């Protein structure tokens, strides 16, 4: 872009409507720079996130073994029909995802909140407690799966030893028994999730205006009333973020079950079924993509909720 024409347009435009939007004052060279600054990240985002999302939708209506592009055959809604009617792991996976959400929402998240409330008080050693509860947040869920495997192990795990059943026939195989392994995995996931929630709520609690609490206590509210009627509602932005994180985390749950047994035998999750259909012997890309689209559609609920909260105001203005 040559500088002369750039300054010319700039001069002409600023003469017309000087005080309006800053973009009017950009020189031609600035426009190129801005185009680069916006264009490159947007292109990356489109090519590696949004186009694949659209392709997933397209592939879900086809039959494909994943070999040659010419093998792609249209299949209408066959994949969805197959998943709903003839694919045994699907409904258990849906149940497990729901269970995952309910468990995180009713146990792990409240536990994190409780820890935050307790640690927010003027307590000795609060930093040490915080560090302990926060440590698992630094670890990947895959690694957490391995660490808890050592703890849950049937014959050599600490848990069975503490229960006195290690080495006996009554010993429980916590990750292997399909009746209980989902609960065992949820406890391990809670180990991480509660610390995450705790740290976010600690920041939220610090941000609550202390005069609110004072006013409540002057009005004669006790600690519990003050918390639920005053402090908790005042943390609304944090609450929304926690809700979104909890929902999305339960839809994204994958690593831990994949490490344990690739998401089979009691640990089926939609995300794991997607991958099982994409890799391995009978690659059924269409079925895997249909599962991915189901996951996408469910995910759009918390995503839309969050975006409307985060951007609602700006869009209006």
């Amino acid at each position, binding site marked *: 872009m040559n500088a002369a024409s750039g300054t010319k347009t700039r001069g002409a435009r600023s003469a017309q409507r000087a005080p309006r939007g*800053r*973009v009017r004052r950009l*020189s031609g060279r*600035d426009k190129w*720079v*801005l185009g680069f*600054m*916006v264009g*490159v*990240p*947007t292109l*990356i985002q489109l090519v*590696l*996130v949004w186009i*694949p*999302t659209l*392709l*997933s939708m397209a*592939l879900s209506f086809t039959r494909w073994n994943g070999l040659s592009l010419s093998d792609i055959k249209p299949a209408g809604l066959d994949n969805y029909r197959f998943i709903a009617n003839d694919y045994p792991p699907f409904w258990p996976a849906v149940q497990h995802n729901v269970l995952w959400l309910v468990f995180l929402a009713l146990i792990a998240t409240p536990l994190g909140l409780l*820890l935050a409330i307790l640690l927010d*008080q*003027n*307590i*000795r050693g609060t930093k040490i*407690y915080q560090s*302990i509860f926060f*440590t*698992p947040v630094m*670890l*990947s869920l*895959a*690694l957490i799966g*391995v*660490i808890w495997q050592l*703890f849950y192990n049937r014959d*050599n795990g600490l848990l069975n*030893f503490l229960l006195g059943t*290690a080495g006996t026939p009554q010993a429980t195989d916590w990750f292997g028994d399909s009746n209980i392994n989902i609960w065992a995995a949820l406890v391990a996931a809670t*180990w991480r999730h509660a610390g995450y929630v705790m*740290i*976010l709520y600690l*920041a939220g609690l*610090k941000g609550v205006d*202390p005069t609110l609490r004072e006013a409540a206590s002057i009005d004669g509210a006790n600690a519990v009333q003050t918390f639920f009627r005053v402090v908790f509602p005042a943390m609304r*932005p944090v609450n*929304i*973020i926690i809700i979104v994180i909890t929902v999305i985390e339960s839809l*994204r749950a*994958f690593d831990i079950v*994949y*490490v344990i047994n690739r998401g089979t035998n009691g640990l089926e999750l939609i995300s794991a079924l997607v991958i099982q259909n994409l*890799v391995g012997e009978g690659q059924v890309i269409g079925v*895997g993509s249909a599962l*991915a689209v189901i996951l*996408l559609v469910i995910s759009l609920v918390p*995503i839309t909720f*969050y*975006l409307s*909260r*985060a951007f609602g105001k700006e869009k209006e203005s």
Partner: protein
Amino acid sequence: MSADQQATQTLPALPKVKGQNLSGPARGPGKKHFGIHIFLIIMAIMWLIPLGWTIFTSLRPKADTDKYGYFSFGGSFNLDNFVQAWTQGGFAQYAWNSVLITVPSVLLILFFSSMMAFAVSRVSWKFNVTLLIMFTAGNLLPPQVLAAPLFQMFKQFQLPYSVSDSGNLLNTYISVIAVDTAFQIGFVTFVLSNYMKALSPELTEAALVDGAGIWRQYWEIIMPLCRPALAAMGTLQVIFIYNDFFWPLLFIQSGDRLPLTTAVNNLQGQFLSNYNLIAAGAMITAIPALIIYLLLQRHFVAGLTLGSSKG
């Protein structure tokens, strides 16, 4: 609750901490907290057990646990399992692979996100909010949604064998770096744009009067002011990328090219039922994250709370 409100609320929250504790509930430290301490101590012990057990197991030689049992203190404690995992178990290679993936990804993420954040927050134009929404939404998708098309796209992308021994983008670090970058720029752009919005508009307007172009406003004025946010995001992203399990699992087929986090998936098969060695491998994988936490805790927590939109 709008994005900028969120930023201005979280930004001044940190220095407030001390003053608020003083003016907080009138209860002093002491007797009233006795029950709370008991509860917290029990919870803390429960929290430490899984990692403690892993460390304990990893420090004991296999021969000693075979002899005395896993639930004993008999025998010696040393780092032999760590040495064995590091040298024979391939963990030195996995650790290097983690570096090769994490460092370029984080640098690219910070570079692209800061440019995008600058463009959407400091310059007003038609689609800036729309694009920002698209970026933020992208980061919230479950990665599995993109798995099949990305895998196939990379498989179809022909490369000379001198560049990639698979003849395409699969089994290369480039594929993992590219997708990690694309996936995370949405989140970092969102956080940095909130941060930049909170900076006074006069900063760049003054520069504009002086004739500074867009690039100079970005690189010489805004970026230095964003150092705290960049440090926080950098730390957070190092942990996120280091802890990423899924993309290397999907794209990398050769076991010796996996990063640590994905390689732990093969521990059981690799070391059979040598739990001491598995524990050492797990600890080697945990240590980098724990070291970063110890050194950069402040930045990491700031990063989480700054942009707690992360799923």
